[in-house]
C-alpha cells in the first residue's frame, strides 16, 4: 500500500522568504507524485506533478518539487513566497496504473507580511 507523510502541519513564513514543505512517501511499487493546493473556500487544485523524466518539476507560480527516489521524498519549495501563497498544501501519491490518490494530512502555509 502507499502512504504519504507530511510532517509539518503548519508552516509560518515571512513574505519573500524561502519555504520548503516536506513530503515523504512509502510504496513498494512505482508511483506518481503530486502536490495539490487548497486556497480558502476553494477546492483542491493541482500544483505540480511528477510522472517520469526530470526529477525536478515546476509550477507556473514559482513552486518546484524534486523527486528523490533514494530518500522517498517529494519536497515542495519556493525561493520567495507571496501573501497569496497562503493556503493548505497536500502531497499525494498514485500507484502507476491505479485510479485513486493517497493524500498526506496537509501543510498549512501562512505567509506573514
Amino acid at each position: 500500500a502507499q502512504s504519504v507523510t507530511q510532517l509539518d502541519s503548519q508552516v509560518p513564513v515571512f513574505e519573500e522568504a524561502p519555504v520548503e514543505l516536506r513530503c515523504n512517501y512509502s510504496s513498494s511499487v512505482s508511483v506518481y507524485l503530486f502536490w495539490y493546493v487548497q486556497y480558502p473556500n476553494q477546492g483542491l487544485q493541482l500544483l505540480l506533478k511528477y510522472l517520469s523524466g526530470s526529477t525536478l518539476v515546476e509550477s507556473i507560480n514559482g513552486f518546484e518539487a524534486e523527486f528523490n527516489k533514494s530518500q522517498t521524498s517529494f519536497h515542495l519549495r519556493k525561493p520567495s513566497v507571496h501573501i497569496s501563497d497562503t493556503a493548505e498544501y497536500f502531497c499525494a501519491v498514485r500507484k502507476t496504473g491505479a485510479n485513486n490518490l493517497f493524500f498526506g494530512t496537509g501543510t498549512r502555509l501562512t505567509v506573514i507580511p
Partner: protein
Amino acid sequence: EPEVTQTPSHQVTQMGQEVILRCVPISNHLYFYWYRQILGQKVEFLVSFYNNEISEKSEIFDDQFSVERPDGSNFTLKIRSTKLEDSAMYFCASSDDRATNEKLFFGSGTQLSVL
C-alpha cells in the same frame, strides 16, 4: 477554467439520518470520484465511478454508502444512516482521462456534521 461544484457547502444532520451530497462534475469528464477528510486527518479516497458503475472503492465505502449519476450532470453520494464518525469534509472530483489521471478537478467540498 471549468470547475466542479458541490452543494450544499455545509450539511448538518442527526445521527441515523440519510444524507445526499451533490456534485456537478465538469461537463465533458467521464471519471468521477468522492474523497473525504476528517478534521486533522488525511484526505481519503472513497470511490471512483465510470460508465455508470463503481470502478474502485475503498474500505471506507461500505454498504452505508452509495453513489449515483441520476442524470447527465449530477453525481451524488448518499449515506443511508449517518454515524458520528461520518462527520468530515467530502470532496467530489472529476477527470477526463483515467489512464493518466494527472489532473483531477476537485470541488470546494461539503462539510458534513453529524450530531
